[in-house]
């Protein structure tokens, strides 16, 4: 992962003193600090409300420090039966993991084929994938997809929110670019000369080399899918929701219970924040690497 070395600005500019264009001015630092504060504030605000009471939530002036009711509020969310919050959380984990694994595998396969194999119609097919990336499938297909799910009897089941997401044109595109950068053509040919079959090459040569790219794609797919809202909202029911749908039902059923809604919301982003804290460095590195390699 060459991004790590690239991340450090060239050290040799250090001695140049005033004329160093990469020197951060105090103004830059203040602006960055302010941006980080702005980025963190709504999350902080979520915690404030989630740890207070409903009358605090509509107080003027607004409360600016967290209160002491977080534990009680979390308990209340979990005890609010009609929100099916834990079901939603578990469902989201199931749906998002399945989709992520599928997208990564499908994209790695296809990326290998497009980047390093030679077959008739390759450019045409790759071009068609690029075109379909522009189709907003969830909006375009919403009516027929819904009718399809109704006729299959899949409304309200997780199948309905997993299957349409198993593929992702962006993933194929990204893995094609990544494979092209990460796997030298000669390596594949050398393996061929040794008599390796295509699948063996994929396993022995491609897979080890593109693993970082797969990880980046996995993280991106996970975050994207965790957020899916429109289609799950239409096709799922309150009894068996994903976490986003569960929260939207929570907001509809408990309008003035801001504390309950905010606590649920905070719990819903918790898994993502945990992933972010644990893998922050990798996510930043991966995003940046993905951005330049693909």
């Amino acid at each position, binding site marked *: *992962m060459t991004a790590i070395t690239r991340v450090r600005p060239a050290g040799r500019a250090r001695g140049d003193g005033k004329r160093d264009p990469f020197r951060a001015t105090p103004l830059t630092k203040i602006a960055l600090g302010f941006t980080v504060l702005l980025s963190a504030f709504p999350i902080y605000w979520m915690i404030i409300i989630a740890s207070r009471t*409903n*009358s605090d939530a*509509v107080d003027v002036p607004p409360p600016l420090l967290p209160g002491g009711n977080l534990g009680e509020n979390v308990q209340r969310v979990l005890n609010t*039966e*009609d929100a099916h919050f834990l079901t939603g959380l*578990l469902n989201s*984990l*199931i749906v998002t*993991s*399945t989709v*992520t*694994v599928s997208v990564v595998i499908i994209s790695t396969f296809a990326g290998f084929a497009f980047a390093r194999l030679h077959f008739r119609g390759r450019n045409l097919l790759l071009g068609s994938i690029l075109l379909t990336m522009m189709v907003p499938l969830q909006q375009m297909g919403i009516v027929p997809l*819904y009718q399809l*799910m*109704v006729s299959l*009897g899949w*409304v*309200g*089941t*997780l*199948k309905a929110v997993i299957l349409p997401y198993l593929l992702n044109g962006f993933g194929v595109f990204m893995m094609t670019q990544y494979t092209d950068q990460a796997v030298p053509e000669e390596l594949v040919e050398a393996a061929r000369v040794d008599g390796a079959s295509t699948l063996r090459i994929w396993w022995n040569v491609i897979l080890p080399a593109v*693993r*970082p790219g797969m*990880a980046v794609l*996995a*993280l991106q797919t*996970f975050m994207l899918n965790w957020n899916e809202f429109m289609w799950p909202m*239409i096709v799922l*029911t*309150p*009894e068996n929701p994903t976490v986003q749908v569960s929260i939207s*039902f929570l907001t*509809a*059923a408990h*309008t*003035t219970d801001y504390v309950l809604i905010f606590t649920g919301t905070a719990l819903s982003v918790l898994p993502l924040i945990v*992933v972010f804290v*644990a*893998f922050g*460095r*990798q996510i930043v590195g991966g995003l940046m690497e993905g951005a330049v390699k693909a």
Partner: protein
Amino acid sequence: MMNNMRRGRMLAVASVMTAALGITTACSSSDTGSSSSPAPAETITLTLQTFGGGTNFGYKSAVEKWNAEHPNVQVKYNNLTDSFENVYWPQMLQWLQSGTGAGDVVGVDEGGMGLAKARPQFFTDLGQYGLQSRQADFPAWKWENGLNSEGKLFALGTDVGGMSICYRTDLFKKAGLPTDRDEVSKLWSGGWDDFVKAGQDFQAKVKDAKFVDSINTIYNVVLSQEAAKNGNVTYFDKNQQLIVDKNPAVKTAFDFSSKISQAGLTAKLQNFTDPWSTGFVKSQFATLGCPGWMLGVVSGTAGDRFKGKWDVATVPGGGGNWGGSWLAVPKQSKHPKQAAELLNFLTSPEGQLMAFKEGGNLPSSIPAQDNPGLQSATNAYFSDAPIGKIFGPSIKSLQPTFLGEKHAQVKREVEQVLNGMDQGSVPYGQAWQKFIEAGQKAAG
């Protein structure tokens, strides 16, 4: 290349995901297991879906009683949302159509009954479970509205609307207005113009609260009164023809709402939204139109802090009937027999009286209306107002309003124009035209 620690973590992510995949297959197989028909001794769970703010249908105590008496048939009581036309009903229709999502017993507001009657495929025939026997319990109109286009019984009545004005005694006091309910009623006994005048007096003294909650509450109050004077129709005539532009009841209600909005008496809070609900807690308005079921919305939304600060006065301009609902069993219910039994219990005189006690929802069942306890009932939340005496005499003579198949659609759209007018995005001068257009468009 990545270093080993990072690779280790990535692999950890991958293995978590794979583990989760394992759960998928485990879960989906258990799913199919539970959907097969249960053995008779097994506990079944019925879902009861309703709508409305505060205590909504007032079924908490009734459901607790049922669950205690029926250990094998447990009821989950889910009130889905405050808003019938905007959220509950479209979603319910979608679930009814797709065959999944609707509960075993579902509430339907009067505004949805026209369409529900016209779609016999959505609901179970309750006659199969012997509920024809309940006919004598109900006034003819309440009973007949529960018969679908094929003449089958699909819904039984829960409550009726009635009408009153709820007001905040502490805010009235602050404004130098009388606080006693009889004197308050006298304040506007001359009709709605007196009400507006009282509002102007109120507003002259009080700046941090408005006289009425929202334009669409007051609109519905007046519309329900005017409908009774104009053949008991609102947006549709009895042949399902749209008459939003021709019915004088609609115009009168519109004009009055516009007047009260222009007089600056509304808090500009659309009813059954979060800001409206918050308005109760933050004392943003002093009065609102109160059909029986609204009492529970007020007490449930405003909460204990405001107990004793509300009271109930008579409504200017004569009686009206806004709201009132039915319960039905969707065809998709897996336990229609038990669901019908639950429905029977909730709409029984006993169930209706429990709901009346909990939320103030006025019973539609005749034996419950005749119950001496109801006639003498007071409501502690509303300063012990004698609600039996206030609503009791009128509920038997309530006139049913005819509502068309697309009533909920039209109501939703035209009231949006009212809100737009109140909040300033529709100029008063153009509002009536827009109102009619919105109605015509919604009726398609």
